[in-house]
């Protein structure tokens, strides 16, 4: 990947962070940590890998993205808005009564949302079903299934994984956002996941692991997974909850962040200013 593309995608990732932060701060609370941890992933997918037409969200030949960790909806919405699926002004309506941007993605409401998720675990099977349908139709599209590490507490995920592996549905790229935290604390303390890579390999998956903020590595891994024949594929994203902003990375309770005190509000303001400045600088260099 050339330097210009890396810069373009890193800018896109930070735009996801910036717009997510603005949206959540405006609302006063929200799922920040798990949105930030997939910012680079979303940038690589929407900015490079996915075959999509934002002006035609239900284009039959599009690749699909199933955000099974539906609580990262704000991050997804920020990406969809940046891709032009809808106007950015809509982001401010998150969770408002009657909004088309509910906390958890709803395919019937939001342009660009391919699957309704939020009841954890269920997106895995839905993605497997979409992959099955695409395979039967002999389409060369991909389904990108993004699971949370905490989400994998849910048994249904493992039902879906064994199904994907058994039927060798390598058109469904399973991505585990291993950001090490779930709502009540560290995944290792709540329900030890042990080694996701080994687990997925034991389930029959060709599995790669990369740093969650390494755009080149994420992209290269997806390319490699697309070249795998006759085997289900998985990417473990070694990420950080709150990734990309040191204040939020180290914030203890960063699953759903509450903007309810001077310290956090000041940190948010400073982050917004810094991200805007940094994005502007990189975009100027990258023209």
């Amino acid at each position, binding site marked *: 990947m050339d330097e210009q593309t890396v810069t373009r995608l890193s800018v896109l990732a930070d735009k996801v962070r910036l717009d997510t932060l603005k949206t959540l701060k405006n609302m006063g609370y929200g799922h920040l940590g798990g949105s930030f941890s997939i910012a680079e992933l979303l940038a690589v997918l929407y900015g490079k890998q996915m075959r999509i037409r934002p002006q035609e969200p239900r284009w039959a030949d599009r690749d*699909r993205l199933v955000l099974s960790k539906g609580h990262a909806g704000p991050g997804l919405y920020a990406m969809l808005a940046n891709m032009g699926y809808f106007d950015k002004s809509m982001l401010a309506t998150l969770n408002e009564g009657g909004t088309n941007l509910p906390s958890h993605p*709803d*395919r*019937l409401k939001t342009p660009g949302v*391919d*699957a*309704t998720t*939020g*009841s954890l*675990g*269920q997106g*895995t*099977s*839905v*993605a*497997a*079903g*979409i*992959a*099955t*349908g*695409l395979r*039967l*139709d002999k389409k060369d599209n991909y389904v990108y299934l993004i699971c949370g590490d905490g989400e994998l507490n849910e*048994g*249904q995920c493992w*039902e*879906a994984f*064994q*199904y994907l592996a*058994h*039927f060798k549905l390598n058109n469904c790229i399973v991505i585990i956002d291993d950001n090490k935290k779930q709502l009540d604390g560290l995944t290792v303390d709540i329900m030890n996941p042990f080694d996701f890579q080994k687990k997925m390999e034991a389930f029959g998956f060709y599995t790669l692991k990369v740093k969650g903020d390494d755009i080149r590595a994420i992209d290269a891994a997806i390319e490699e997974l697309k070249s795998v024949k006759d085997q289900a594929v998985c990417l473990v994203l070694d990420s950080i909850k709150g990734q990309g902003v040191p204040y939020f990375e180290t914030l203890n309770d960063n699953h759903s962040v509450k903007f309810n005190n001077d310290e956090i509000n000041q940190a948010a303001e400073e982050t917004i200013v810094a991200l805007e400045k940094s994005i502007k600088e990189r975009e100027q260099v990258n023209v």
Partner: protein
Amino acid sequence: MFKQIETAELGKELRMVVVDTIKALMDENKRVIALDADLGSASGWTTLEGTNKERFFNMGIAEANMVGVAAGLSLTNYIPFIHTFGPFATRRVFDQMFISGGYAGNTINVYGSDPGFAAGPNGGTHTTWEDVALMRMVPNSTICDAADEVQMEWIIRTFSQLRGIHYVRGNRKAVHKVYAPGSTFELGKGNLLQEGNDILLVAAGQLVYETLQLTKLLVQEGYSVAVIDMFTIKPLDKELLLAQSKDKKLIITIENHSINGGLGSAVAETLAENGCGIPLQRIGVNERFGQVGTPDFLQAEFGLTTDKIYEQVQPNLANLN
């Protein structure tokens, strides 16, 4: 139009009616697809592999995944039919059916087999007397209880043409014939099988046959009895129910289900909301779990044979006189 037949004959096994109908649908429409959760040998669905192997999936013993995969298939414009035993098709996968299915606007056609006493030797773990109650709670769902083979075929064919969550329950084995071959029905419309002035019997599923036997006993005793086969429990045919309840002295619902949440409840709600002050008796199961036994034993144990139903309605009949 439907035509009743008078016979004590058993029909074709309902599971094979379902299989053969889906097989025909798969031949007719390349978007029809079938999923079973490792009960294909028990349901006959493994025979679907014969002609359309690529569109039959044995999902293993993983019902939640089966429902989610069906939702995903719906998102790629397939028309999924899924099967497992009634309790696992509803109770076990309720959130998947509700969210991945209904809430997400997807289409899933469900055959939940061996409801209620039909679970027989599989016993209490495999018994559902709450499947209809659960499925009624999925907004805009459609729920049918098939009276016989002719109706089952019609229901499966009809489901294949609709979008949404559709549930049909039915014995795997043969049940008594009620309708003549070629009969057609209307979804959401009850079938008035007999007109009468004193008592209204509202039944669904294989107990429609028992209800017709009960009717004969009551008629012999001089009662004038109306009978509705309310094979679509949701949406309920309120119009027919209210029209037929007019001037009746007693209404009785009969179902192979809990009296709470199913046909009896739906009828009670409708009657109460419309100010019908007519005595209502709900025949079914009340606050009991299933148990093991032959289906015949269980049908009697839970008071759902013609004789047992007849016994249970006696106090209310006495009040009529």
